[in-house]
């Protein structure tokens, strides 16, 4: 739990996902598998045994035909800031510091070689963003050839999760360094694979604290919200939807409570 070193530029990477725009096509999921060497098996429908760093959930408003509405909610790791900044629910519980909050980027890391598979972090994460390698990964018949050297393949018995494609950040930082502009990384230079893959432009990624970045503006949208915000996990992933029922689907409300974005209208 280091504080940020003085010579590094502070960033706070995060995502804004427009739920009203997401078509549920799952390009983000597949792009992520491919980018991050996520393994697969022949049986994948039991989602609680399946490795998905980003999962696209289908939400319905529950109204009957033909007033039904459907939205899709892509959910990566939320890279929570935590109740107390720098202490996401999963980080403080990890007994072996195998997952950590990276102060210079706000990214929650996962060190596969350090993790010994106690799964306490999974119990701590309310989003099911973390997955365990129940099996040894197998890439049949030459498929090992498509693995990227930028992300290490995981072994059986460790927890893995979305890293906001941290290796891309490292590559961008290296490039910037070699080009003589250390710490100057453009918004375009570091984008996650899912953001880049989203064919409908529903995902935006960048530095939440940098006013020049798109996400900085988007997160202030009147209809922006976060998933399970009331648990005080302070996620770095924001969502936008103009639909009230989607807001209701994103957090828990007692009878009579109204999602914040709609509280004014109701009053």
């Amino acid at each position: 739990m280091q504080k940020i070193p003085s010579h590094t530029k502070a960033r706070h990477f995060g995502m804004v996902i427009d739920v009203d725009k997401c078509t549920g096509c799952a390009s983000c999921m597949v792009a992520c598998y491919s980018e991050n060497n996520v393994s697969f098996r022949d049986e994948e429908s039991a989602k609680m045994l399946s490795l998905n760093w980003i999962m696209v959930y289908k939400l319905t408003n529950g109204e009957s035909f033909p007033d039904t509405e459907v939205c899709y909610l892509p959910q990566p790791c939320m890279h929570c800031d935590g109740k107390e900044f720098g202490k996401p629910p999963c980080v403080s519980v990890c007994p072996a510091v195998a997952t950590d909050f990276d102060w210079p980027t706000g990214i929650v890391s996962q060190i596969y070689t350090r993790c010994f598979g106690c799964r306490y972090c999974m119990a701590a994460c309310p989003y099911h963003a973390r997955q365990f390698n129940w099996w040894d990964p197998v890439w049949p018949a030459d498929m090992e050839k498509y693995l990227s050297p930028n992300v290490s393949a995981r072994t059986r018995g460790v927890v893995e999760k979305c890293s906001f494609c941290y290796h891309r950040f490292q590559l961008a930082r290296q490039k910037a360094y070699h080009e003589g502009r250390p710490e100057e990384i453009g918004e375009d230079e570091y984008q996650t694979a899912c953001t880049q893959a989203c064919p409908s432009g529903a995902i935006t990624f960048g530095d939440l604290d940098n006013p020049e970045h798109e996400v900085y503006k988007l997160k202030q949208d009147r209809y922006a919200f976060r998933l399970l915000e009331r648990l005080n996990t302070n996620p770095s992933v924001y969502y936008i939807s103009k639909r009230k029922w989607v807001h209701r689907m994103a957090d828990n409300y007692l009878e009579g409570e109204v999602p914040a974005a709609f509280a004014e209208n109701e009053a």
Partner: protein
Amino acid sequence: MTTSAFPEGVKRCSGSQFILWLLPAFLVLLIAAYAMFRVWGFGLNQTNMNDAYGFALWIWADLAVIALGGGAFFSGFLAYIMGVKQVKNIINFAVILGLVCYSMALLLLGLDVGQPLRGWFIFWHANIHSMLTEVAFCLTIYLGVLIVEFIPVILENPKIQRIRFFHHLSHNMHEIMAVFAATGVFLSFFHQGSLGGVPGVLYGRPFAFREGLFIWPWTFFLFTWSAAAVGPLFTASMCRLTEIITGKRLVKDEVYQLLAKISGWMLLTYIIAKSLDTIYWATVTAPSAGFSLMSFYTNNPLYGIWILIAEIVICGFLPALILITQKGRENRRLLFAAAALAIIGLCINRWVMVLQTLAAPLKPFDEWFMYSPAWTEVVTTIMPVAVGIIVISLAYRYLPLFPQERELNP
């Protein structure tokens, strides 16, 4: 003349009968060993755990077994620190029970981690903010303390006593047992608590999350308190069970009654505290995250409000009230019925704090996650019972566990 391997002045059954008695336990052990081979060999896919149930039967078993094994620390506390003489008549048994419980808990933990070969990272790369680190440290050290506490009992075997060094060693260790016991109590207090802290700190899990004192959630104290209350009852119950099986009186009723009285008051205070905690959680903590009490107890096939009533009323207040009344204690059946209820209550508590915590849906579009353990999990969870039978049988046969046995069985 050869010295008998049995403690002085007691009768023991024949060797063949003894082996026959142990056979079923060994059979269980064998199956469990096979299950362990499967799990360590092929990985945790051999269980029914999944990403929703990263913690499952084994973690529950750990929590329950350690809490019940807590009889060792609380009896030790009573015997060596508070100087309650009567408790010394059962302390050896409590220690050995604790030893079985703790070693089995560690074994199950070793089985439960995905990369057992890296298990020691918890010490090497310790994150001291993690309740699990605290558990691991205290548990391991306390297991050491239990062994140290158990050594003199082993040394009291007549054959070993013949070796002068061991004779002196057992004597000397008895002399300073209070030091070990005090250390054990200190360690045990923390790890019983940190086991409670394990679910209590999960602020992403509103079913388990509790506010608290400094870094400790209320569950930290509740777990310690409940283990202290129910642990001795478990020791007493197991002792009574040994009596029934051996057909001998081993401990005087007054010892049982004393333990029951202390436990009864501990249980009563605990269950009052637990009720207050539940009320605060149900009315303040959980609603602040948008959950009503009933949202944790509806829309699923298992976890109804009955479980809360069972835990607090039927297995909490009821046994507590029985145990604090003299009449209740003096009726042996009632006493042990109450003890059984209290033990069940404790197990329910540990179950819900682990399993229901994970089962309850958080995202409104999630559904309840249900789980049933695989045979590998079940058999390894039964394994501590088999090991307990074997270890206690051996100890009872060869070691002077019960100072009152000779007197009670002339």
